């Protein structure tokens, strides 16, 4: 039995540890497909939002609500967190576990800051403008699209933290390398969706 388990802890790590085992290859490909499905999910939400963005009931239109400085900060936070997760994967491929954990940690902090901003934004809309999920079809569509994205960010953070804590003591091996890799793929995907939200919801919303 021991000879089988040694396979996951080779003396020299391969160049692409995330795809070195069949399980890893399957996870890698399956996750890309999953992201394909997620793309359709967000496309449907974007379509709904575009159809309803003019359906306001009072002065709470996108032009009156959105303030670009905050959203710009959020965009920068999330874009940077995507870059730091790339650094983490770079160190994973060099088998430098410590640095990978460090960069993942920075990614998590940036993601938390983003979530904090988003919560503030929602709080602001609800309390200062009384713009809620229920006030108009535009409100429903806005909170659903942006909220789905925020929920994805939260899930991604929980996922990455779980992986970091679980593997903190044992380091990198061929069993957990694919897990780290697909978590970072997920994080990139969330970032790409945000780029579209920034453009379609906020930039097009203030015009």
């Amino acid at each position, binding site marked *: *039995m021991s000879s*089988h*388990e040694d396979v*996951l802890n080779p003396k020299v790590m391969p160049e692409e540890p995330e795809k070195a085992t*069949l399980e890893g*290859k*399957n996870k890698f*490909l*399956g996750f890309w*497909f*999953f992201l*394909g*499905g*997620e793309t*359709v*999910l967000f496309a*449907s*939400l974007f*379509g*709904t939002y575009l*159809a*309803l963005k*003019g*359906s*306001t*009931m009072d002065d709470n239109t996108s032009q009156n609500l959105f303030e670009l400085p905050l959203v710009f900060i959020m965009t920068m936070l999330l874009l940077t967190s995507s870059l730091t997760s790339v650094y983490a994967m770079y160190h994973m491929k060099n088998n430098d576990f410590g640095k990978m954990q460090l960069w993942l940690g920075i990614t998590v902090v940036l993601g938390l800051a983003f979530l904090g901003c988003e919560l503030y934004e929602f709080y602001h809309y609800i309390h200062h403008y009384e713009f809620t*999920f*229920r*006030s*108009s*079809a*535009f*409100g*429903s*569509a806005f909170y*659903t699209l942006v909220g789905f994205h925020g929920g994805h960010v939260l899930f991604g953070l929980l*996922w990455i933290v*779980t*992986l970091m804590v*679980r593997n903190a003591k044992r380091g990198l091996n061929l*069993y957990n390398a694919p*897990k780290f890799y697909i978590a970072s793929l997920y994080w990139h995907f969330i970032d790409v969706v945000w780029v579209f939200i920034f453009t379609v919801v906020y930039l097009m919303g203030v015009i």
Partner: protein
Amino acid sequence: MSNTIAQKKGFGATLWDYLTTVDHKKIAIMYLIGGGFFFILGGLEALAIRWQLIVPENDFVSAGFYNEILTMHGTTMIFLAAMPLIFALMNAVLPLQIGARDVAFPFLNSLGFWLFLFGGILLNCSWFLGGAPDAGWTAYAPLSTTSPGHGVDFYILGLQISGAGTLMGGINFLVTVINMRAPGMTYMRMPLFTWASFVTSALILFAFPALTVGLFLLMFDRLFGSVFFDANYGGNSVIWEHLFWIFGHPEVYILILPAFGVFSDVFSTFAKKRLFGYTAMVFATVLIGFLGFMVWAHHMFTVGLGPAANSIFAVATMAIAVPTGIKIFNWLFTLWGGSIRINSAMLWALGFIPSFTIGGMTGVMLAAAAADYQFHDTYFVVAHFHYVIVGGVVFGIFSGLHYWWPKMFGKILDEKLGKITFWTFFVGFHLTFFIQHFLGLMGMPRRYWVYLEDQGLDLGNSISTVGAFFMGVGALVFLYNVIYTSVKGEKVGGDPWDGRTLEWSIPSPPPHYNFAQAPLVRGLDPLWIEKTEGRKGMTPAEPLDDIHMPNNTILPFVMSVGLFIAGFGFIYQAEYTGGFIAMFVGMGITLGAMFTRSVKDDLGHHIHKEDLDKGAGM
């Protein structure tokens, strides 16, 4: 190894084995039982519908209850009967056809099954909790948003849970086909059933998320006060129709393509010929899958999208007749000059060709947008989609079950009973639905509870009802056949049909690792190639070695139970604190199980090569 031990196990141990299994062959059997159960349920609902319509102004059921059985018949048959039965066939043979020991994601595969089952049970719990959904299987807003009671809420949560399971199944089979093929099994050597399942899985992946979003919006509107479909707040109910049909039209190809695959395999086996036009068949399958995403608005011709949109979608819809026609001709040419054996599997396949062709022709008629204004929402549409779904999908499932039953259970279904089933069901099917074309053309609307006498509709409806009972008898005989065969049927060997593809090169039922050694594939119909060259079986592509297999686990079951509880919670959270608690407890169970799955290593186990021969007999 497991087979011999399994027979000596007690009931509790067997139950635990099935609750925790990640073996695709056992999951196939569970899909078969689950799908079969819901097929009977949906069939009883159909009989109730037809009994109500046997005479004018009948009062067998009330108007409200009629809406419920009508909705549940459609929803059950599509989501809980046809799809799981197709997943049963895919699980049973797809890995065998590509020479794989397992699927790519055995855990996910098991989770997909349990989500389907608990979603289906949740939906049917509505019968006992104040009434089933009554807004039709399409649940159009605002009818669905304003439907009183919790029926539609059960529809939303039930389909959301089982839909998630289907999506997982789709991803699993996509990766299985791409990554797990045996040496030499190139894409253009894969059997047509594998190809069709592959394309179907891609359709599932890209179609189901649209339903997921649609159901979320409906759930938010009904349970959390959003106003997506409420025109008073600027909402737009046409969005639901778009989302539903962006999912819903690919869904019908998700159902029919695997059936096409079954027929291709059955025709070539029982005509003893290589499938005619294999490349064109693959091309046609992919093209149908692609076009399937371009035609959703033909369900919405009468919504008023405008002549330009209607024309584009009409032409795209008619275009699908081309690859489908290619398929029909290729099947006929496969039969041409073949050494044909007619048994139950073949009868269903032969019955399929004329039945499905009629359904295809009425499909082209409905695709003509101008004429559709006349056909829309009449029994003509009902006749059309039953001709393609029953005449295509259900015939395909029956054919596939007869064909692969010996592979799944080691016994051939009784031929005499099989033929009785076919003839009663086939005659009953045409009796039920052929006349409905004319009822529709004479103006009988769909979904109506009663009709008036002396409108020229009386005789047609009575004939239709008689036909439905013939189908019921056919299905009962099949059920009896299953029991009869499992008690009295004789064991058969690994290759009872003189088969052509890899699944027939291993014992029936196969050992749980499928192939002791991966087979070397040297062309299309790999087993047939070996047979023509005088060999008895496949040449192994690797030396005998230890086999790595995944471990059984209860976590998929626990996750699904969690969502089941949470489903009730979501439905009742607004009225009862208990509902609120159930929502959190259920989600907690599911997320906790996901967390456990993430942190607990599951490395699988190895079967030592010394232990292999005992169960395998290779």
